[in-house]
């Protein structure tokens, strides 16, 4: 049984960043996701028109990967309606910023850290069951968001910018970020407490002291550009190995 063009496009949207580069960003992936819909819509037209539409789809485009479907749908509808190519290029440019910023706020600064923070907090209670639960929640939300975005784009076409602005997305993005801030603060402390269970008071106090020093280094204006968590961790590992070696 052959999949409908919409489903083919949805599946391809899962790999929209497979050819991600600094020059075109997700442009090639966007064209790949749009191709089944364009093929279907331009069945009765000349192949040249479809090729021109695919070529336009492959130009520079940047957005959050989960929201790229909004642009795919809007561009495909605009191509089908015979909108001039200059207007379609403008639509892509106009969508790049908002889809990137909204997606980053909603997903990278919202849903993902919120889910990870809550998962860290629930590990002491649920144990390894936390992992399938978090994966299920994230992937259901992700697929639903991608489907919603593609359908919104296909329905609204050139008017997708306004539809996006008046949708639930901007409001939920703000809430998700606040939830993420709470969850990371809560989850990090609960997880650290769990990992320190049964250890000496000196170990707990050492972890607290190192964390305080690390946070100050990560935030201080003079060190924050050079100090990252992973670099700080590597330096601590090196120092601890030196001390352990010296104590043998």
């Amino acid at each position, binding site marked *: 049984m052959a999949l409908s063009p919409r489903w083919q496009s949805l599946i391809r949207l*899962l*790999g929209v*960043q*497979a*050819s991600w*580069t*600094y020059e*075109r*960003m997700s442009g*090639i992936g966007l*064209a790949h996701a749009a*191709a089944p819909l364009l093929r279907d819509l331009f069945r009765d037209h000349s192949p040249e028109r479809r*090729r*021109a539409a*695919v070529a336009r789809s*492959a130009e520079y485009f*940047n957005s959050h990967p*989960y929201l790229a479907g909004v642009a795919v749908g809007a561009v495909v509808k605009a191509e089908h309606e015979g909108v001039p190519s200059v207007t379609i290029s403008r639509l892509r440019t106009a969508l790049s910023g908002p889809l990137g910023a909204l997606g*980053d706020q909603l997903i*990278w*600064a919202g849903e993902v850290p919120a889910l990870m923070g809550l*998962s*860290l907090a629930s590990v002491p209670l649920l144990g*390894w069951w*936390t*992992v399938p639960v*978090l*994966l299920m929640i994230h*992937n259901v939300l*992700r697929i639903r968001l991608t489907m919603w975005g593609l359908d919104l784009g296909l329905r609204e076409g050139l008017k997708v910018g306004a539809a996006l602005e008046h949708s639930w997305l901007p409001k939920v993005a703000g809430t998700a970020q*606040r939830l*993420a*801030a709470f*969850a*990371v*603060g*809560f*989850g*990090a*402390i*609960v997880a*650290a407490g769990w*990992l320190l269970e049964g250890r000496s008071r000196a*170990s707990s106090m050492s*972890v607290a002291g190192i*964390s305080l020093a*690390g*946070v100050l*280094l*990560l935030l201080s204006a003079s060190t924050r550009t050079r100090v*990252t*968590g*992973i670099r700080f*961790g*590597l330096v*601590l*590992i090196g120092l*601890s190995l030196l001390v*352990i070696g010296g104590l*043998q």
Partner: protein
Amino acid sequence: MTIVLAAALLLWGTFVAVDLVTVPQGMFSRPLVSATVAGAIAGNVTAGLLAGVVLELYALEVMPIGASRYPDWGPAAMAAGATAALVPGAGRIGVAGLVALPLAMVGGWSMLLHRRQTARSITSRLERVAAGDARVIWQLQREGLLRDTLRGVVLSTLGIAMILAAGLVPWTAIEHLELLDVAVLGGGLSAALGGAIRSAGSGARRRWLAIGAAAGTVVVLWP
């Protein structure tokens, strides 16, 4: 380590490497997931979970936002989770950091190489892309996937080599090994909280972060 176990870990490490950016971006590459599953594959899910929790603290500092540079935690956490499960006496938190932090940095660097090669592939077919040849678009996507898979295989092989190397260390003969645990956990907590404070800005989100941290402290200290 048996060949079947090594093959299963190689497969899982490669899958999570590809998941980070290429497909399906389903958060399988998060250290909490990658290390726990690796622990389960290696026969000790709890050891993998412990490694995953501490590495997740590090990973919360930087999110994989498009053009930014970030470590690749997937194969690194696979190696850490499996080491925690397979190497007795190593101290699960400390060995997780020892194995995963350098490998995650190498993974981040390999992502840059992968992207540069993808750019070269596109440049070499620019005329056909500009002509709207759907077949060349598909080829570029397929090559991107294959290249990222190869990147995952290399990183996972390095990870398996690190597991084997960790197995050669006489951990039980080393005194004061808890210092390594303290260093790795202290670094992770710094990364999670420092990153959260930095990204929270100065408004409501910082207040929510403070409320969360205070609530977490109450839960931990509750008798």
